């Protein structure tokens, strides 16, 4: 910890998806306002748990003032948090509300993944009028995938006339989403809606459908700028706006409050909204953003 300027570290699981890029941009902007130095570190691959733990350990041994991490896996990050605790470095978890394996976290900041998935499921029921065939694109096995897909199915399972005819893993990737959707649409020409557990997979599905001249609904989670453009152009039907930029801002705001000695809640939930073409502008202008509210731990089901 430098005497004057504080150094804070942001550890997203990867810097190759627009979502985390947005978070980091938001965080940098606020940090600059407060005069904090920002270190951003991310492993090359989003499945490399060990490297993320290592990176965090390195930052602990560098004695940064605070660490904000979006763990690839909430259990696996435990070791590193324990070390941070030993060095008295506060740890903030962002984009996740599930408590970690061990160690003490100062604050969890994130949106409710399961609830977001519920919103999409309700949207599905609405546009399909309670019956139809749908397909799900999973990401790489992880907490996020479990919550997003599990939450979605929770609602859908109440509607016996909505059939999940296909569920495949597309590794969070647009290219995989594209090819899997193409194949699936061949096998099941009656698919009416594709739910991608991330925007990129969902955009892949949308491109596949448009290339096959099929009109289906495509919905995803993230609300990245690129997705918003695709909603604008009519390619993608809907997404969950998760305000990544604002989430990044919030993280640094909360750190600042902590440094100032203000009390902060253990769990802070940021808002999510369903974004379709009609409320696109409202979302983009930030009007739909509402103040994060104190919340509770998200329990894995």
């Amino acid at each position, binding site marked *: 910890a430098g005497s004057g300027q504080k150094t804070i570290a942001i550890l997203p699981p990867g810097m190759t998806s627009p979502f*985390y890029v947005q978070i980091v941009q938001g965080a940098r902007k606020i940090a600059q306002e407060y005069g904090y130095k920002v270190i951003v570190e991310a492993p090359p691959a989003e499945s490399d748990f060990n490297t993320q733990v290592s990176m965090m350990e390195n930052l602990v041994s560098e004695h940064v003032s605070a660490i904000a991490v979006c763990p690839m896996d909430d259990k696996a990050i435990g070791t590193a948090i324990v070390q941070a605790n030993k060095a008295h470095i506060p740890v903030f978890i962002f984009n996740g509300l599930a408590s970690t394996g061990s160690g003490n976290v100062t604050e969890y900041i994130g949106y409710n993944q399961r609830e977001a998935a519920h919103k999409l499921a309700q949207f599905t029921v609405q546009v399909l009028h309670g019956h139809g065939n749908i397909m799900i694109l999973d990401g790489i096995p992880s907490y996020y995938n479990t919550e997003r897909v599990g939450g979605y199915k929770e609602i859908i399972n109440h509607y016996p006339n909505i059939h999940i005819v296909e569920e495949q893993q597309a590794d969070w*990737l647009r290219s995989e989403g594209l090819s899997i959707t193409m*194949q699936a649409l*061949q096998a099941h020409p009656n698919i009416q809606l594709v739910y991608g557990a991330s925007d*990129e997979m969902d955009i892949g599905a949308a491109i596949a459908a448009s290339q096959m001249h099929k009109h289906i609904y495509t919905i995803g989670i993230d609300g990245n700028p*690129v997705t918003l453009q695709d909603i604008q152009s009519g390619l993608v039907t809907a997404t969950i706006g998760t305000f990544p930029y604002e989430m990044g801002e919030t993280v640094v705001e909360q750190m600042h409050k902590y440094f100032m000695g203000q009390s902060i809640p253990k769990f802070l939930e940021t808002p999510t909204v369903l974004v379709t073409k009609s409320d696109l502008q409202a979302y983009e202008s930030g009007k739909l953003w509402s103040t994060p509210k104190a919340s509770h731990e998200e329990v894995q089901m």
Partner: protein
Amino acid sequence: MALVILAGALSLASPAFRTWGNIQDIVIQASIVAIMAAGQTFVIGTGGIDLSVGSIVGLSGVISALLMSTDKAVGGMGHGVVVAVLAGLGVGAVVGLFNGFAIAKLGMAPFIVTLGTMEMVRGLAYVLTQGETIDALPTSFDNLATNTFLGVSDLIWITIGVYVVSWVLISRTLFGKYTLSIGGNEFATRLSGVRVDRVIIGVYVLSGVLSALAGILLDARLQSGISTNGDGYELDTIAGVVIGGTSLSGGSASMFGSLVGVLIMSCVRDGLTLLNVNTYWSDVVMGLIIVLAVLTDILRKRIAVQRWFRRAIVGRRDQGEVQGT
């Protein structure tokens, strides 16, 4: 062979497999990797290996996309499609040149050189995009992936073109002959007065350019340039080439085999989707298929070798006493 059996089995198992549209889809999906595999076949023919192909897909895709994107916010420069495509191919050539130079002139091991460039090139793609997706590509470019000619997708035509040219190169030109000779015995080839270094450099440049082409086509297919594109394709191309019957120790190459190898893998993926196999099991099945495909090939060859041996001897002896064992 294996492909035919596989296709047959899948057709029986799932009627959807048999449709013309589905077959075309399989080929379209395979086309990107297939184009890369053509280049990789040359490299493996020399006894080398090119791990950088996947990241070249990323980098050249990103550079082409940046050059032609009309979205200023992500750094788009709004150049013409032709310029962008040429620049993308150029990037592939430059990376290939670097690989080839380090291998041929500095005598470094292909595996390690291309592992290094793989990281570097991927990193450059990240640096250029800063993690953003480069979209807003010209429609004329996006159409590359959807246009058809005589009812067949442009992507398929391009793939066919690449394979015809590659096949001519490997089996009808000196470049091809030397490629395989180098794989067979580099020293002997050098002693015979062949400019081995040039051939090696040429092979890696070719692989780089074909990977760049694949990257550009993937852009068209995904309607955007993404820095992570092509991640992991190096193993897919190598697997395709090896399943196709080209030996990793160099000296032989089957262009047609590589195409078939890639198609087999694409078929299996497609088949697994159509049969609605549990996501978690699909990797298991995929791995099994790779092993089995190569195994049947080995067993088939063993029998063929025995036959060849007999023929050679019979030819020499003019005696008909050889019977099947």
